[in-house]
């Protein structure tokens, strides 16, 4: 379902300084698989996620998702693809702290001008799934870390995407909350979502819900 073909990604910091984040990487991820990308920071895991989400374009190579070449999509179409297919859970959650839970979760749908009933239905569904309904109108900055994480996951799922991407989801959480997160992943796996997680948290290693682990180091797969 997701395929990277000979992907190289480099950043030009200035004329003399080029950082190579990914070096000729190829990988395949099947539908419904839960794949963990292991590796220290700087190994290129975040770049892979970024490419799958069409948040960045590869310097060379192709990224194909569901038979569609997403690596060369124009900006508008890349966003549309992201909106319809990807649910991204960021390391720092990236919620808008002055808005409420409800408003944050609905944010991906705003430009679509959805039918209010439709939007409500989607909202209720994800809030219940991730057990955050009771805090519907609370402002983000007043929530605990764990609650914020649940909002982040709910937002990532509001548009029923096929692919869930999580970048170091448990980096800022204690063990208890980390285990909570894994529970939520189990729910998502049941729905046959394709899940890709970049992490160096040992809690994920050897987990039964993980189908595969891909180890990365210095921009290449080991």
């Amino acid at each position, binding site marked *: 379902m997701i395929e990277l073909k000979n992907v190289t990604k480099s950043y030009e910091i200035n004329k003399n300084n080029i950082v190579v984040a990914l070096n000729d990487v190829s990988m395949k991820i099947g539908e419904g698989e839960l794949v963990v990308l292991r590796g220290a920071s700087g190994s290129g895991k*975040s770049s892979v996620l*970024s490419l799958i*989400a069409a*948040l*960045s374009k590869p310097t060379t190579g192709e990224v194909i998702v569901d038979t569609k070449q997403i690596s060369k999509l124009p*900006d*508008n179409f890349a*966003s*549309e693809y*992201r*909106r*319809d297919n*990807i649910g*991204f859970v*960021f390391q720092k959650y*990236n*919620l*808008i702290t*002055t*808005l409420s839970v409800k*408003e944050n979760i*609905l*944010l*991906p*749908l*705003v*430009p679509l*001008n*959805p039918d209010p009933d439709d*939007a409500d239905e989607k909202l209720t569904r994800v809030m219940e799934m991730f057990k955050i309904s009771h805090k519907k109108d609370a402002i983000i900055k007043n929530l605990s870390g764990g609650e914020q994480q649940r909002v982040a996951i709910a*937002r*990532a799922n509001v*548009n029923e995407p096929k692919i869930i991407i999580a970048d170091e989801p448990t980096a800022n959480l204690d063990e208890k909350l980390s285990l909570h997160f894994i529970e939520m992943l189990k729910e998502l796996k049941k729905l046959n979502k394709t899940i890709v997680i970049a992490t160096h948290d040992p809690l994920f290693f050897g987990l039964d819900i993980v189908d595969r682990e891909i180890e990365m180091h210095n921009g290449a797969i080991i």
Partner: protein
Amino acid sequence: MRKKINFYLIEYAINAILRQKYKNIFIATTLTFLIFLLTSIFFITNSIKYELNSTVDALPEIVVQKIKAGRHYDIETHATEEILAITGVVDAVARVWGYYYFENAGVNFSLVGVDEFEAQYKESLQRVVETSELMNTQDSSMVVGRGVKDTMQKNYYKDYFNFIKPDGTLKRVDLVGVFDGDTQLESNDIIVMSKADVREIFDMRESMATDIVVKVSNPDEVATIASKIKLVFPDSRIITKNDLKISYQNIFDYKSGIFLALFVVSLFTFFIIIYDKASGLSSEEKREIGILKAIGWRVDDVLKEKFYEGFIISFFSYMIGVILAVGFVYIFQAPLLQNIFTGYSQLKTSFELPFIFDVQTLFLVFFLSVPIYIAATIIPSWKISTLDADEVIR
């Protein structure tokens, strides 16, 4: 092309505006102030124009003046007979009037001469002749406007006034009444006395007059009659009511044009400020846009949202500015600003600005504010919308 209005986006835009509270309050306040100033000026000129046009309406259709060497001269009184002979002319009256410069106060009085048995060309003068003591006394007497009375009083003249004649001698005229004209603008600096007295003060011969006013039966024929008069008196200048109206409109357009020019300058400055403010993004703002794009907002969506913001701010400022202007001009009678337009002489009137509702003015102010504000935000909004989400999230 007919999509439903996206209330979600509007709500988000409003929230975004409130999130940058101080910056936006600054912008909104400045914009509101500019709009307020501009609208007030337009309202004032509209009202004064209206007053003036009403004044002009009360004036005679045609005024005939004699011109010698390009300058205004006294005209022969008997010219009225020849003018009366022209078809369509109902009445022709010789007027005797002039400006008297009162040195001590540094002001001009308008002296208007009336004769008891003549039909006056203006209602207010007719009233003066009928109701005042002017014609009843043997001595020279006058009826004055309020502003004149106050000025005279300030210079210690209570019941009479000494006019200085051209030969240096004094002429004493008794004050027998105070009057209000049809509109306040005109009556303030007027002194009404007998024609003989005015002639004496200005050293004008009995057979001469200042000008001749002509009344016509059909207003549409004014231009024709004016040209006929010109044929009879080639050395005359004919001023029609329409000419006056046009010149008033031009004067006002000229004056408001000056203000508009000033406004343009301030607008330009404002444009630069807006551009600068809008371009200067806090890292917080950048992060927010990055988040939006990361969760699936397209460039077009972010652009649309930015324009909603711009439109909301500018339109809101427009409404508040206009409402404040209405209050300032029509309820508080525009202190300070009013003087810029009405003050020619010291005898300033305090008259009430009539409420004129002119849709075109509202559109004019709208075009001078909202599109310009939005234009200033085009490039900054575009820069924001095309930020790379990837770089921002890391």
